């Protein structure tokens, strides 16, 4: 989720959208087929070539390093950043999916619902890889230890980016809890009428989901042969209420969209004092607000009461795709790609990835001070955040539709017609409706 990705989104999404509508008809319906069962894991004779589709800048160089060392397992990459899931969806339907593909955590259940993956638990190395990753990531790629469908690649543990110079100037303490954060919002405004503590972008469900995750809001479960939809819960309403109060008091900006030129302009003009972000955001601020070097610090996300819980925003996995004939080789490459220190260092340097592998958190580049942040060891904060992320959180099988419904309703709340809690119930309704449309057994849980 680098800034480039965001910018591409602006133009790319539109073009892709127009094209997809046109291509709608070209997509065929999936034929009935068995649930991905554990296939055998025999090494192939001779040379093998694997396809690996992803959206990470510089990934071709990482793969080139592997190819040099492994003449018998050659990997070809393809960048599908323009329309990641559209490209993969079409390839799956055409039976031409790559062996390995990048999938965001929140899209894993949706892709599995489309029968996109193969279970590689027949490979001993795949099962053993569990210990190498941050716990919550493995619980998502293994769907709660029911198989091995993907390896975690990178994560976006959340933290609070703070303009320490502004807080110092107005003699305000950096907040540790959400209550303090709200109080500071008022103090900053009192000190400077043009200053807001942050902005709330209603068109960013991924961000809001991260905040829900932090507050232990478990949006989906599975029991009694049905998905249990608990998007609408006490915990999610608490988060919605909190932000509604800040919006009503006009203490947060609602006119800025995340990672767009207007957002950077507002930060540039010193109108916004904090940025609630994820690990990948460190380079985003560094690259887009070069004049503010030394003015930022990164602290843990404000907490609900005394709980140290954090949330995740973004990050991806490398999934084993359906029809993959080379499971053994795919596991070998995927293990190297996502746990080998040399590979992780290169991915961090070229693609800005914050690794999901525990070994990655100890990379030299991630234990040093970062000049833009006054030489602070900012990655320690993200490593700590990563440990405090709820491992039981699960995404739904129609997450994209639910996100869109949440966004549309949050936008209404922000423009004054409705409340953010209405958006929570709208998202709950959309989850049930979209699952019904896809004939996925679901019920409102509690």
């Amino acid at each position, binding site marked *: 989720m680098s800034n480039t990705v965001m910018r591409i989104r602006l133009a790319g999404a539109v073009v892709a959208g127009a094209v997809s509508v046109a291509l709608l008809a070209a997509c065929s319906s999936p034929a*009935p087929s068995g649930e991905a069962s554990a296939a055998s894991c025999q090494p192939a004779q001779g040379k093998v070539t694997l396809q690996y589709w992803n959206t990470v800048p510089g990934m071709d160089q990482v793969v080139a390093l592997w190819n040099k060392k492994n003449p018998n397992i050659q990997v070809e990459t393809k960048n599908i950043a323009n329309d990641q899931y559209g490209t993969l969806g079409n390839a799956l339907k055409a039976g031409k999916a790559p062996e390995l593909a990048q999938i965001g955590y929140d899209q894993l259940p949706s892709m599995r619902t489309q029968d996109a993956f193969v279970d590689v638990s027949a490979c001993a190395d795949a099962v053993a890889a569990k210990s190498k990753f941050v716990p919550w990531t493995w619980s998502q790629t293994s769907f709660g230890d029911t198989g091995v469908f993907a390896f975690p690649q990178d994560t976006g543990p959340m933290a609070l980016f703070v303009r320490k110079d502004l807080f110092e100037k107005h003699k305000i303490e950096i907040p540790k809890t959400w209550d303090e954060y709200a109080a500071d919002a008022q103090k900053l405004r009192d000190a400077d009428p043009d200053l807001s503590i942050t902005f709330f972008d209603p068109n960013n469900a991924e961000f809001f989901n991260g905040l829900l995750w932090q507050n232990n809001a478990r949006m989906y479960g599975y029991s009694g042969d049905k*998905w249990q939809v608990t998007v609408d819960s006490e915990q999610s309403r608490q988060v919605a209420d909190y932000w509604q109060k800040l919006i009503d008091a006009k203490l947060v900006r609602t006119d800025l969209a995340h990672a767009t030129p*207007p957002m950077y302009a507002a930060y540039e003009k010193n109108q916004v004092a904090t940025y609630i972000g994820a690990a990948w955001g460190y380079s985003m601020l560094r690259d887009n607000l070069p004049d503010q070097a030394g003015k930022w610090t990164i602290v843990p996300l404000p907490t609900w009461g005394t709980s140290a819980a954090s949330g995740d925003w973004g990050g991806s996995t490398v999934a084993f795709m359906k029809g993959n004939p080379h499971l053994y080789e795919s596991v070998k490459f995927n293990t190297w790609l996502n746990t080998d220190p040399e590979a992780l260092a290169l991915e961090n340097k070229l693609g800005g990835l914050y690794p999901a592998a525990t070994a990655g958190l100890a990379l030299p580049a991630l234990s040093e001070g970062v000049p833009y942040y006054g030489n602070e060891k900012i990655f320690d904060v993200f490593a700590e955040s990563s440990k405090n992320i709820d491992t039981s959180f699960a995404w739904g099988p*129609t997450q994209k539709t639910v996100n869109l419904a949440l966004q549309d309703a949050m936008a209404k709340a922000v*423009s*004054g017609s409705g409340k953010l809690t209405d958006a929570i119930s709208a998202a709950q309704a959309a989850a049930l409706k979209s699952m019904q449309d896809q004939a996925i057994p679901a019920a409102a849980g509690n």
Partner: protein
Amino acid sequence: MADIATRGTRVVAESGDRRRLSDGGPRAGIVLAFLTPFFLPFVLFYLVPIAYAIWQSFLVVRRTGGQYGTSYTTFGGFEQYAEVFQNGEFWASIGRIALFGIVQVPVMLVVALIMALLLDTPLLKLKSFFRVAAFMPYAVPGVIAAIMWSFLYSPQLSPVVDLLKGLGLEPDFLGPGAVLWSAANVSTWLWTGYNMLIMFSALQAIPGELYEAAKLDGASNWAIAWRIKVPIIAPSIILTTVFSIIGTLQLYAEPAVLRQISSNISSTYTPNMLAYAVASGNNYQQAAAISVVIAVITFVLSFGFMRLTSKRAGL
């Protein structure tokens, strides 16, 4: 007068048709050779996808067993269509573009017509400059135009907003009430020159003798424009109106780009955006049904308009 003129063009058109028809028969092979490069892609990339979309719109998804059970599609009759017609978002999006079209299309076409008539008067200097200048926006891809305009609308970046604020105004181009018209403005900017050019080329085809005759009869420039030029180019005006109706119903790029900076455009703002949102949620069958309904509405409106106007204009 109008009647004579239109009947004149009609005679020309008919004799043209007859010539083509009489040549066709004996040289079928040659005709086929010339038409294949057109018809093959036309069938493959136009007719087949349309037929496929219609087929998809009659299917529903079913699933067997478990949390991640296996899906298959089966014939569901009009089930998807029933969903479309019961979908409040769909009707809201239709209402939005209806409002958009009722205001934007006439404004754009009147401006285009005035510009075409001005370009056609002998009074105007620097004609080719104005013609190219007016047509220029059409050369800018729609997405790029929308991105450019979004920079002019954004309160954080726009010099226009700064200027208006300096004058004591508080413009909000992206607010809940204004954003539809901000999108309409982008469409108007993009397409006025294109429509003007169609009307202008029709004006160029009017024989000069008509003007001479009118002048001898003592008609003013105003009367010539209103009584001769406009009636003669009526078919072109109808054509541009039909194009505009179709364009409005398929509105996508402008609101989709503005959506990136304004939360007042929902993911289901126009019918096409709704179809895209539904498709991106893997509900291809429902998206196909929405697309078919949009297509039918488009056909009904554009052919309805053509019938209505051709009767009126006596074409």
